[in-house]
């Protein structure tokens, strides 16, 4: 096309701090709120609970909070994937329970090593997602119905597997349980990881800005990049330091964070991620653009169920047991609520991997705060329900605002 007469290109808008701020503001006005509401909400929740009970923000309690968050967080990460393509998986709780049961039966009852039992459980999750995808693509059954059937059916398999005794205890000296309960990052390593994270953020931002400048596109200033990295260094450093005053940062939480970062990379930097957002935004447009929409749906279901299975194994390891209520109760709804509270749109196409992290912190904070106040689960359900409604409300209002801006 180069021989076409090209006219002077419309100038890309100028870069710099102020421009960045203006773009952000425009986005918010246009209804693209991002993680803003949930961060604000988290701040409010922490302030309220801390004023009601000073133990809430103690190092011990926050260490517990991180450990409790990991398993539901991983499940929620899978829910984010499914929501991004505009579908839903209501069976993540049942899958997590089933995979925990499979792992426990293989590991304890059959005496297989963990390196066999855990992958087998995860593989099962993978297969369930694939089956969901096939049913969805071939017969067009709404995902709501497929996974509702999965919720019941897989719960049945879970109970059947555990048999009449109804529970399997994992030995306390097993590597799995130790990983979930006792494995903490040594302080020196935790600080090193913080420095690596901040340096990595700066390095990638700097490389990107340089590439943009080389292509004479506006780029953020080095000063802003530096400020951002220092902010991250200070924030993470303080958090890690605070956690290190007691037990420190659990490896299980690090695993969760690593999964969040990996999924974030996949969603935001790869063709596959772009396809996921496209299918969630406008499946027909994605199809016309040549994207294999069915494969994207299947992969999203598989990611959802696989991560649910991983979360189930982590929860079992943390509890050192699998019983009939594993993955039951509020696990399912907490995982879905976390994804939505974190800013993943139920309408598809909007949200990030960080939604799972932020959302699960909100959910677990509420749960932990109410437990500290000696309020029982009835209150927990009510408050979580209210927060969920609020989050979905914000999403819906933002969506309406987007629509009105889009048509403006």
């Amino acid at each position, binding site marked *: *096309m180069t*021989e*076409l*007469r*090209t*006219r*002077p*290109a*419309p100038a*890309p*808008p100028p870069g710099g701090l102020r421009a960045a701020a203006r*773009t952000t503001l*425009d*986005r918010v006005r*246009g209804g*693209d709120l991002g993680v803003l509401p949930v961060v604000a909400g988290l701040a409010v929740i922490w302030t309220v609970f801390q004023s009601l009970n000073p133990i809430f923000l103690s190092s011990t309690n926050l260490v517990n909070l991180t450990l409790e968050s990991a398993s539901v967080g991983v499940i929620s990460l899978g829910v984010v994937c499914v929501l991004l393509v505009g579908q839903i998986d209501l069976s993540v709780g049942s899958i997590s329970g089933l995979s925990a049961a499979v792992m426990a039966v293989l590991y304890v009852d059959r005496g297989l090593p963990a390196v066999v039992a855990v992958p087998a459980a995860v593989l099962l999750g993978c297969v369930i997602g694939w089956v969901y995808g096939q049913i969805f693509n071939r017969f067009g059954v709404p995902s709501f119905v497929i996974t509702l059937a999965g919720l019941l059916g897989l719960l049945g398999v879970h109970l059947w597997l555990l048999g009449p005794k109804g529970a399997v205890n994992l030995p306390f000296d097993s590597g799995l349980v130790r990983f979930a309960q006792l494995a903490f990052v040594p302080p020196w390593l935790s600080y090193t990881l913080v420095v690596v994270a901040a340096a990595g953020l700066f390095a990638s931002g700097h490389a*990107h800005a340089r*590439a*943009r400048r*080389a*292509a004479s*596109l506006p780029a953020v200033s080095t000063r802003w990049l530096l400020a951002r990295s220092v902010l991250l260094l200070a924030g993470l450093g303080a958090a890690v330091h605070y956690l290190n005053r007691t037990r420190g940062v659990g490896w299980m939480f690090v695993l969760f964070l690593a999964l969040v970062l990996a999924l974030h990379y996949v969603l935001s*930097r*790869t*063709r596959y991620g*772009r*396809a996921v*957002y*496209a299918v*969630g*935004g*406008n499946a*027909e*447009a*994605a*199809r*016309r*653009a*040549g*994207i294999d929409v069915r494969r994207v749906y299947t992969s999203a279901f598989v990611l959802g169920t696989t991560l649910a299975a991983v979360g189930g194994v982590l929860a079992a390891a943390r509890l050192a047991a699998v019983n009939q209520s594993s993955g039951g109760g509020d696990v399912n709804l907490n995982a879905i609520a976390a994804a939505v509270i974190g800013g993943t749109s139920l309408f598809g*196409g*909007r949200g990030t991997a960080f939604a799972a992290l932020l959302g699960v912190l909100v959910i677990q904070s509420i749960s932990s705060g109410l437990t500290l106040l000696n309020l029982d689960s009835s209150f927990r359900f009510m408050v979580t329900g209210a927060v969920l409604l609020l989050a979905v409300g914000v999403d819906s209002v933002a969506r309406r605002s*987007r*629509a009105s*801006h*889009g*048509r*403006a």
Partner: protein
Amino acid sequence: MDGDVLALRGISKTFGAVAALTDVDLDVAPGEVVAVVGDNGAGKSTLVKILAGVHPPDAGTITFGSGRVVISGPADAHRLGIATVFQDLALCENLDVVGNLFLGREPRGLRLDEVAMEVRSWELLGRLSANIPSVRVPVAALSGGQRQTVAIARSLLADPRVVLLDEPTAALGVAQTAEVLNLIRRLRDRGLGVIMVSHNMADVKAVADRVAVLRLGRNNGVFAAGEVTQEDIIAAITGAADNAAPGRTASASGPAEPPSGRTASARAGTESPPGRTASARDDREPRRAEEGSRP
């Protein structure tokens, strides 16, 4: 280049009980602009979608160049070098402009090359004199005309051989319309085949080499644009000339009967010169209102 003619023969398509297309023929040669015109529901978009691989045809053959081709999906159309601007634009509102331009055609690699994509995006948009403030805003935040420009720019991305434009100027302002018409001429001069669906006779007269009329899903005449009057085209569109049995080949001696007075007056707005003032959207409204009273 004569070998690379895209030819449709006997294309039919039904949606349930609705026969959207019946036995339709259409040719477009390299370096030629064919305008497809017809009333609302005449089957124009369906024809475009069949070529774009959105719907498979129920019957008929498509040949491209020397051989027969089967377009069973959008990927097939892309592979053949057929690029499409759909009437509904088919953009993902949640993705930004760059994301939409490159959707499904991102450069390969472990990591998306956002910088290269953005540079190319500005270049493509510059070619259309696009009035777009940022390529990093979600398409939801763009105006209808800006979106249409994005959709047109997208069709140029992969060096197509044939470009299908379904009402490409429907939402565009005066300057952008002129720019798109210019672009169509440039594409033609470069040897691309262009199929343009339009309701705007001024646009059609301005760029088309041939005008193919669809009526109720059937061919209703193909005219050489230079030799046909606007009235003749309108007569073929509305069917006022049905008795005159217009031929399928390009001919100046097309429909003779003048359109009814009512129709002619309703379309008076389309008589404006190429740098028209009335936008296509405006002149669609009376047409729709007319449908009920059409014989």
